[in-house]
């Protein structure tokens, strides 16, 4: 296996994260926003793995597992919320849920 420089891994993580971020910013559909968040979480996990691999330690993977757990919980709660929002507002438009505006 080729020996890779660390920054390439991290750069990949950064690119993926940025793509997710752009998506969050431009989408109005809540489900798409949730998907984009998943992309960003995944990118963060990738960064951890790269770091763990750099030191040949298990800690990076442990962190990834934590992120994974969190993502799972987040998705389940998030989807439940989406169901509720859709139920109440009859739309997936995140801008429609602006009752909290000051």
């Amino acid at each position: 296996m080729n020996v890779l420089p660390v920054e390439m891994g991290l750069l990949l993580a950064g690119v993926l994260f940025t793509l997710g971020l752009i998506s969050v910013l431009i989408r109005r559909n809540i489900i798409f926003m949730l998907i984009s968040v998943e992309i960003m979480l995944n990118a963060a996990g990738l960064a951890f793995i790269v770091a763990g691999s750099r030191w040949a330690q298990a800690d990076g993977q442990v962190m990834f597992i934590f992120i994974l757990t969190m993502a799972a919980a987040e998705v389940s709660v998030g989807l439940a919320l989406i169901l509720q929002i859709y139920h109440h507002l009859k739309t997936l438009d995140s801008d429609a849920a602006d009752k909290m505006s000051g």
Partner: protein
Amino acid sequence: MAFYIASIIAILATIMVITRYNMIHALLYLVVSFLAVAVIFFMLGAPFVAALEVIIYAGAIVVLIIFVIMMLNLKEESVEQERKWFSKNIWIGPGILSLVLLGELAYILITSERVLLNNSVVDSKAVGMSLYGPYIIGVELCGLLLMAGIVGAYHLGRQRRKVVHRFLEKAEE
């Protein structure tokens, strides 16, 4: 070499995800992206995590989202709506911001000292030792979190049964 190929696939797939109008298509590309990342994990010497990536991300989470989309029973008009929401101008601001962020990140990485990855494999056993050793408190917290997630999802997802008199319901219509 394989790393670069996988990387490019991941990036391309992700770009496809964020540009689709149809959710199901986007999710399929997302699976591809996750799989590519799983390959990278494998190459980085983390086979256990690669497996988890496939099973949980590409498997469970994506499937969950698909289920929800199916529950919502979205039709063609949702795709149309997505198209309507998706103007060209909307890209400009987020794009610039994100690129700035990415640029700064790249700058940090490039200017930092060049370090090569360690080529050793950290197997699942080591991960397990680590998880149930020094990180035990984290595991417990994750347990709590999942618990809260389950309870929260159940509570939020429950359809409240409206107890309204039928005449009143009629009146509402």
